[in-house]
């Protein structure tokens, strides 16, 4: 029974809670047991059982009173990037070692207000910089999926690797993620779950450790599209504390899930056919097109001419913003401070603290960002990248103006790879993981990854749908139709 409880979706758990068939305390205890039995996945890095049970009891009272919102009593995991009051929140970085925020991020507060139960904090790449969860100070999170009979540990993707692993392994019903270049959608695809990055501005960024502020967005990582709709609704809000959060009403996303996409126009971007892309990914994409066509959508070929330049633009803009955002980690106000030698002044304190506290990938990006913003290079790199970003956004505006409702692409250029397999590759090869997702962040659009099949090694593969700005409801409905047609029900065999 315990296992069955943790396998529930948010929607089934909500209905069972309201019907009195299960309590939030029972659900929460089942998840806490599953988490304790899954240390091999290294998904939960700070467990909060006391907070969880306290919130579960409060949720049960609320449900009994009959006034409970959809997320009430639902046990979820929170990515370590979200500041959670009194609970370690260190963005998987050594430089925030010991940091316990005095405040709660708006998104995690919204979830708490809706009655969701926080089980603990989830592993991730350091400061969300990575595509494999291998840059974490906590060590690698591990994908519950394996290749056939091979016991190689695979990456759950990144940066929201712990969130993806935890949801796929049924340690929690759902989890929060954040996505700067694909950090929700790529790990979702690698683990056979659903993940949506909403339109930039839909979720407040307040209290989320900043990586690249013009690209960062939070979103839910869930077992299916309906759950993504429910949880996204609870996460979004206008927030005066984030000047980029949109003052727009949050629609009832779940109500939009009719599965009817007759007459919708789905664009297939020519530029997403990459050289060297595995045939399995091409085949999956073709099947996706056929499924949406069978459901009554019109499939059209489109062109997004600047696609090729999205990753290079991203690797100017994101490091530039990161170098500014991460300037605050100086050993003065929070986190780690290096031990100083006799005669060391404040500059040595900064330099030693940051050398010790940041991992290699973070240092690399901060320094690249520093370089592209430095005198003499600002125009050549940073301003040029921002101009290219404007062109990438215009590519999307042009196809939407032609009547395209959503765009279908593969979510990733491959299935999950083995942990350590990219160790000797140059950094740029790792960056290519985000080739299909990063355009969406640059254009500020909503994008969702939906599991759509297995490769020949038995690993999940995902498709991505990209929607018009602020039209997450419509996007979720298209994703729902795709999910219905794909009928993906596979689960990883338990080995942990």
């Amino acid at each position, binding site marked *: 029974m315990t296992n069955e409880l943790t396998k529930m979706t948010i929607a089934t758990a909500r209905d069972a809670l309201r019907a009195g068939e299960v309590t939030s305390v029972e659900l929460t205890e089942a998840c806490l047991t599953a988490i304790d039995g899954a240390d091999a996945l290294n998904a939960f890095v700070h467990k909060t059982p006391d907070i969880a049970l306290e919130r579960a009891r409060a949720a049960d009272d609320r449900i009994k009173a009959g006034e409970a919102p959809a997320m009430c009593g639902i046990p979820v995991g929170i990515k370590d990037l979200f500041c959670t009051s009194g609970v370690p929140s260190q963005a998987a970085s050594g430089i925030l070692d010991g940091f316990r925020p005095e405040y709660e991020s708006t998104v995690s507060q919204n979830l708490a207000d809706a009655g969701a139960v926080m089980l603990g904090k989830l592993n991730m790449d350091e400061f969300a910089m990575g595509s494999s969860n291998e840059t974490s100070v906590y060590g690698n999170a591990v994908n519950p999926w394996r290749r056939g009979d091979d016991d190689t540990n695979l990456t759950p993707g990144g940066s929201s690797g712990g969130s993806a692993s935890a949801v796929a392994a049924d340690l929690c019903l759902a989890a929060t993620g954040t996505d700067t270049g694909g950090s929700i959608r790529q790990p979702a695809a690698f683990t056979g779950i659903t993940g949506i990055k909403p339109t930039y501005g839909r979720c407040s960024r307040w209290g989320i450790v900043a990586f690249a502020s013009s690209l960062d967005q939070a979103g839910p990582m869930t077992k299916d599209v309906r759950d993504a709709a429910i949880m996204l609704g609870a996460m979004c809000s206008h927030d005066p504390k984030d000047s980029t959060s949109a003052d727009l009403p949050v629609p009832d996303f779940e109500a939009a899930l009719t599965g009817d996409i007759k007459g919708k126009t789905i664009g297939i971007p020519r530029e997403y056919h990459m050289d060297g892309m595995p045939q399995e990914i091409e085949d999956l994409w073709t099947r996706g097109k056929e499924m949406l066509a069978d459901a009554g959508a019109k499939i059209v070929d489109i062109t997004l001419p600047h696609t090729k330049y999205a990753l290079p633009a991203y690797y100017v803009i994101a490091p530039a913003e990161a170098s500014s955002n991460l300037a605050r980690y100086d050993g*003065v106000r929070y986190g780690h401070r290096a031990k100083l030698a006799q005669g060391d002044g404040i500059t040595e304190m900064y330099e030693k603290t940051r050398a010790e506290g940041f991992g290699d990938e973070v240092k690399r990006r901060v320094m690249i960002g520093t370089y592209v913003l430095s005198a003499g290079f600002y125009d050549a790199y940073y301003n040029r990248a921002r101009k290219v970003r404007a062109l990438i956004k215009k590519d999307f505006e042009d196809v939407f103006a032609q009547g395209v409702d959503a765009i279908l692409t593969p979510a990733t250029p491959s299935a999950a790879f083995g942990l350590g397999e990219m160790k000797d590759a140059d950094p740029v090869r790792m960056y290519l993981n985000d080739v299909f997702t990063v355009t969406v962040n640059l254009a500020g659009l909503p994008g969702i990854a939906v599991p759509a099949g297995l490769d020949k090694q038995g690993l999940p593969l995902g498709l991505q749908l990209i929607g018009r700005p602020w039209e997450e409801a419509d996007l979720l409905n298209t994703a729902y139709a795709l999910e219905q047609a794909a009928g993906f029900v596979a689960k990883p065999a338990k080995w942990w």
Partner: protein
Amino acid sequence: MSIDEGTAARVAKLARIKVEDAELPALAKEFNTILGFIEQLNEVDVEGVEPMTSVTPMRLKRREDVVTDGSQQDKVLSNAPDAREGFFAVPKVVE
């Protein structure tokens, strides 16, 4: 554009990250790989394009210029590696 060890050292200094001399050649090489990748942007015709400042065309909200927060000295200092007498403490700044 090729980055030499001297430039790598200068960037590390600007970023306030201590890098040992022995690590500079490898760092310069990595920078060159990444910057080589970024150089592709030079192929794009950006004539007359305005650099993007905001991905969603939104006017920032304004509010009254009044104090809305404060008086939380204990909370502000609670995570400091070194705090004394209500202040953050740091090594000597001025000789």
